[in-house]
């Protein structure tokens, strides 16, 4: 063992309490990082697994831009792409069993069992081969119809000429899909093509790739050669979408882990710096007998390294346990039962190892350097030490002001440049430095809160804090940094809640959102408005088929949502940007079937603005059912933070355009039906929305409204609940950071007690009681906690301001709302943290024997 390691390893146990606390702090920081990453990786892995199972080997899906059938020659174009491994063709059609009043609708899908690579992976009971008149049905349909293998089905479908066609089919196999959403009956492709009069035509091409990671590249290549088709990579896009939606959440988690590790670094710094201070004489001796500066540096750096290695290794092991806790929290938070046991991957282990060692080494660097630079004469002759040597406060203040100035400029976005997260680093550190300067100069003003409790205790404690400025600064600094983020998170939570609630109200904010189990004629609104509680009602009709839009800068598959322009704006208030007044927008939508409203994200993607023309591949029904590209006018561009979370059929609201019901009828095969109705209640009934919704469900049982309908209150409460659960998880990590800070405070207080034994002895000898000594140290802790809290208020608000000036956190702008409840909570947390950290050292101080205490030189 090297000399440095030997001295380091033997010194650590001599300062047992602070060493244990420091190692525990590192342990917690690393365990937090490992635990969170393992749990996150488990959740995302499970999601990817689910996506992979759901889509099987299919990497690419090709459909026509408007959902109509196309020639199976397209299959060759797909097959010719070098990235494509296997292809399969299908004709997805519709079928129904039952009577007009009671029926079951499903997809009637034609497949080639012999060469459909995706169908080959289905979990089918019975046989998967399909001869004439044979079908495989999804389990859900079989159960709903009470059918099994060998049963027959009397299916009604329609031909390409919209003529009804009856087919008698025999079930030869039951498909057990991944989730209970299957509603498909599989039939031989040639048979279906023949029955519906679409020989040689299909609606879908499925493809697998040699390398699934190249799915987006394959989409781009195929989209180029098939411009009027919709080419998608469902697996890759789903993964991208979930990553996009969880970015803010992951940033939140990582920032909190970062805060914990910074607090750990502070603790290591404090512990080692105090150790250097205590061992100054020893350093002098080693230097005097020929130890070099580098050797002294190594001794103290090795001590930090040893703490880091022990804490990190323990943290990685502890992280395994913590991962189970966080996996459980994820399961509860996101209602995903039975997440797999998180695995410690080499990547996560390395991240933990790197973060733990980097944290500790960052904390050790300055103490080790300062140890190596100690003046030998001053080290071996305490009388030669300059007792007035202090941190030059004016320099500290100047540095703080510069950092704060730049940090505040970044938060408010008034600097000529912008560096991501620069304010997150500069504001807390600048505030702590500023706090140090104030703490060193503020004099008796700081004693005021403690004087209220006890004049004598306050008198001594306030001066003790200022006498050990560096360690005091580290203590309140940990509180300031942690609570700044607590206040910021509280503010973001309030802001996100406010933005989402407003967004929900803007997007679908009717008093009641009725969701039927089938498409209902839009004239159903008359039934609704005839109810005495209802002020108005309007359909919201998503088209079951996609369309394809060709913008100036890109083309994209889009969803179509139809509304009644005369009533819709009286219930829903979209926020329009760079558009005409609302009344004019809806007037144009009503009068011009070739006009539409578009969300800003889609407008930006396609490169169009209000007043521009947008070409759309429509399903305008013609005699031969051919399609055509029609130019639409963008009547208005609207915005909303929740559009990306609302899904209509295959498309999210953020990827769907809004047209009138008449336009949908003319260009998008609309039939004046809708499964969704928005209901606005008369003012006196708004508080009874739930009762009214139940009443409507009872009056129209055939639409099964009770199953899926929501009131605005329920929707907002759902939004609130989800936000609270997500933020509870982030705050849980923050509490860990605070626990780590408590340990740092405890370690510092133990040092204070240790090197003030003589002072304690003197105070006791002069008549101070044990409880007064306890109060002395608790008072010092409280002073540090309160000071840290006071600095955290501007810190938190500035961080919040910076966060609300960026969309990267939530995908939309969050309003700046001062989080009063979070500030109050931060005060309580500060006091709890310092009391936890100070209690044991205070009790230890009060129990010192007076004679032993007075022995200290």
């Amino acid at each position, binding site marked *: 063992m090297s000399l440095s390691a030997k001295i380091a390893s033997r010194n650590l146990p001599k300062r047992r309490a602070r060493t244990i606390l420091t190692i525990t702090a590192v342990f917690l920081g690393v365990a937090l990082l490992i635990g969170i990453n393992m749990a996150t990786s488990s959740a995302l892995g499970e999601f990817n697994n689910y996506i992979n199972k759901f889509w099987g080997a299919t990497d690419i899906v090709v459909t026509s831009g408007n959902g109509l059938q196309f020639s199976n020659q397209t299959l060759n174009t797909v097959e010719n792409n070098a990235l494509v491994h296997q292809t399969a063709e299908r004709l997805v059609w519709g079928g129904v069993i039952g009577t007009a009043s009671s029926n079951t609708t499903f997809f009637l899908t034609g497949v080639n069992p012999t060469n459909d690579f995706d169908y080959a992976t289905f979990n089918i009971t019975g046989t998967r081969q399909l001869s004439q008149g044979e079908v495989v049905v999804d389990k859900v349909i079989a159960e709903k119809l009470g059918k099994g293998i060998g049963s027959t089905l009397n299916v009604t479908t329609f031909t390409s000429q919209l003529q009804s066609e009856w087919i008698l089919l025999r079930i030869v196999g039951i498909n057990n899909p991944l989730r209970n959403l299957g509603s498909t009956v599989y039939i031989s492709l040639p048979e279906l093509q023949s029955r519906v009069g679409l020989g040689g035509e299909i609606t879908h091409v499925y493809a697998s790739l040699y390398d699934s990671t190249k799915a987006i590249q394959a989409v781009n290549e195929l989209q180029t050669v098939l411009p009027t088709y919709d080419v998608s990579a469902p697996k890759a896009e789903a993964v991208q979408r979930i990553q996009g939606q969880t970015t803010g959440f992951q940033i939140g988690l990582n920032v909190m882990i970062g805060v914990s590790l910074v607090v750990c670094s502070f603790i290591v710094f404090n512990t080692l710096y105090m150790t250097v201070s205590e061992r100054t*004489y020893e350093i002098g*001796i080693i230097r005097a007998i*020929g130890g070099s500066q580098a050797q002294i540096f190594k001794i103290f750096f090795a001590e930090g390294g040893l703490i880091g290695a022990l804490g990190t290794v323990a943290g990685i092991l502890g992280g395994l346990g913590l991962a189970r806790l966080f996996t459980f929290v994820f399961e509860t938070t996101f209602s995903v039962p039975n997440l797999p046991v998180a695995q410690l991957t080499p990547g996560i282990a390395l991240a933990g190892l790197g973060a733990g060692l980097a944290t500790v080494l960052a904390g050790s660097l300055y103490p080790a350097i300062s140890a190596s630079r100690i003046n030998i004469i001053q080290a071996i002759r305490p009388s030669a030490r300059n007792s007035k040597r202090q941190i030059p406060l004016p320099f500290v203040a100047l540095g703080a002001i510069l950092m704060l100035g730049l940090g505040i400029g970044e938060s408010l976005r008034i600097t000529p440049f912008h560096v991501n997260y620069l304010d997150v680093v500069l504001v807390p550190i600048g505030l702590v430095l500023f706090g140090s300067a104030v703490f060193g100069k503020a004099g008796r003003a700081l004693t005021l809160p403690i004087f209220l409790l006890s004049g004598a205790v306050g008198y001594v404690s306030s001066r003790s804090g200022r006498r050990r400025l560096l360690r005091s600064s580290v203590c309140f600094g940990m509180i300031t940094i942690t609570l700044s983020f607590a206040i910021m998170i509280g503010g973001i939570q309030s802001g996100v809640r406010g933005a989402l609630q407003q967004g929900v109200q803007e997007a679908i904010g009717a008093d009641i959102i009725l969701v039927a189990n089938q498409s209902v004629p839009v004239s159903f609104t008359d039934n609704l408005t005839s109810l005495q509680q209802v002020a108005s009602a309007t359909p919201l009709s998503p088209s079951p088929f996609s369309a394809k839009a060709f913008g100036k800068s890109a083309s994209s598959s889009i969803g179509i949502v139809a509304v009644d322009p005369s009533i819709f704006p009286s219930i829903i208030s979209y926020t329009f940007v760079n558009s005409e007044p609302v009344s004019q927008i809806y007037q144009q939508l009503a009068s011009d079937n070739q006009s539409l409203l578009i969300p800003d994200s889609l407008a930006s993607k396609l490169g169009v603005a209000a007043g521009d023309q947008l070409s759309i591949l429509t399903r305008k029904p013609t005699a031969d059912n051919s399609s055509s590209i029609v130019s639409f006018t963008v009547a208005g561009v609207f915005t909303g933070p929740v559009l990306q979370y609302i899904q209509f059929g295959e498309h999210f609201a953020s990827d769907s355009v809004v047209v009138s019901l008449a336009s949908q009828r003319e260009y998008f095969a609309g039939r004046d039906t809708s499964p969704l109705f928005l209901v606005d209640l008369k003012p006196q009934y708004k508080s009874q929305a739930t009762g009214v919704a139940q009443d409507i469900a009872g009056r129209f049982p055939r639409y099964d409204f009770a199953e899926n309908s929501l009131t605005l209150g329920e929707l907002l409460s759902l939004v609130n609940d989800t936000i609270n659960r997500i933020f509870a998880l982030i705050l849980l990590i923050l509490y860990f950071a605070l626990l780590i800070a408590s340990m740092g405070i405890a370690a510092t207080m133990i040092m204070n007690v240790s090197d003030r034994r003589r002072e304690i002895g003197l105070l006791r000898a002069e008549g101070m009681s044990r409880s007064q000594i306890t109060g002395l140290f608790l008072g010092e802790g409280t002073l540090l906690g309160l000071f840290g809290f006071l600095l955290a208020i501007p810190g938190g608000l500035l961080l919040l301001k910076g966060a609300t000036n960026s969309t990267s956190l939530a995908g939309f702008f969050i309003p700046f709302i001062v989080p009063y409840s979070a500030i109050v909570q931060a005060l309580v947390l500060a006091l709890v943290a310092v009391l936890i950290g100070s209690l044991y050292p205070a009790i230890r101080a009060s129990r010192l024997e007076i004679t032993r205490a007075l022995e200290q030189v």
Partner: protein
Amino acid sequence: MNIPAVVELENLEKSYRLGEVTVNALRGVTLKLMQAEFMVIMGPSGSGKTTLLNIIGTLDKPSTGRALIDGEDITIMNDGQLTKLRRHKIGFVFQFHNLIPVLTALENVELPLITSGIKRRVSRDRAMELLRRVGLQDRTDHLPDELSGGEQQRVAIARALANHPRIVLADEPTGDLDTQTGSEVVQLMHSMAKQEGSSVVVVTHDPVVAERADRLVEMRDGRITEKAPERLAGQKHTIRAVEPLPPEPGRSLSQPN
């Protein structure tokens, strides 16, 4: 026979600021230390003894004047050169807390050898030999706080001599010991330095130590006021072979962490 000078000090001045006051710790000190000479410096507190010792030990630098060790001017050396010089040519014995508390007696003696990069086996043998010579061969694995004050100083003497230094510097080596133990420690230091051929400079208030001196130097107000080799010439003690001193069981001074 012409005995070479190990240390040559020429007109040394040292001043430093203490608050608002400038203190002139040394005022034109000129002095030579010969090979194997046992020099004792005495004088009242604040007379500049320790400052002079620190300059000879390369721990401090003079404000003006020249200081040579083995003919090399230490006033123009940088920190790295001074560290190497101390490592190879100088040994120290301080008043108390001489030893690294977490290292055993053996490891403490080994410390300067290890910092010099000497192989572990060689350094261990040398340390064992020195501990045997100071009579602590049975206490090699004891930590400093398991040793008495006298034993600790004997370990410090062994450590000071580990690298075969040209000079051993001792600042009040008996200041923390009782008279009997102090006398034994001085006798040990004297005899071992003579055996190793090392020169010794001892700063002390203790007349018992002064009795051992080949040369006694007195200082006052930063100046050498009296050189008394002649006074001591006729009273020189006969250097006797020193038997290893037995350990002092039952004595243990606790050291603060």
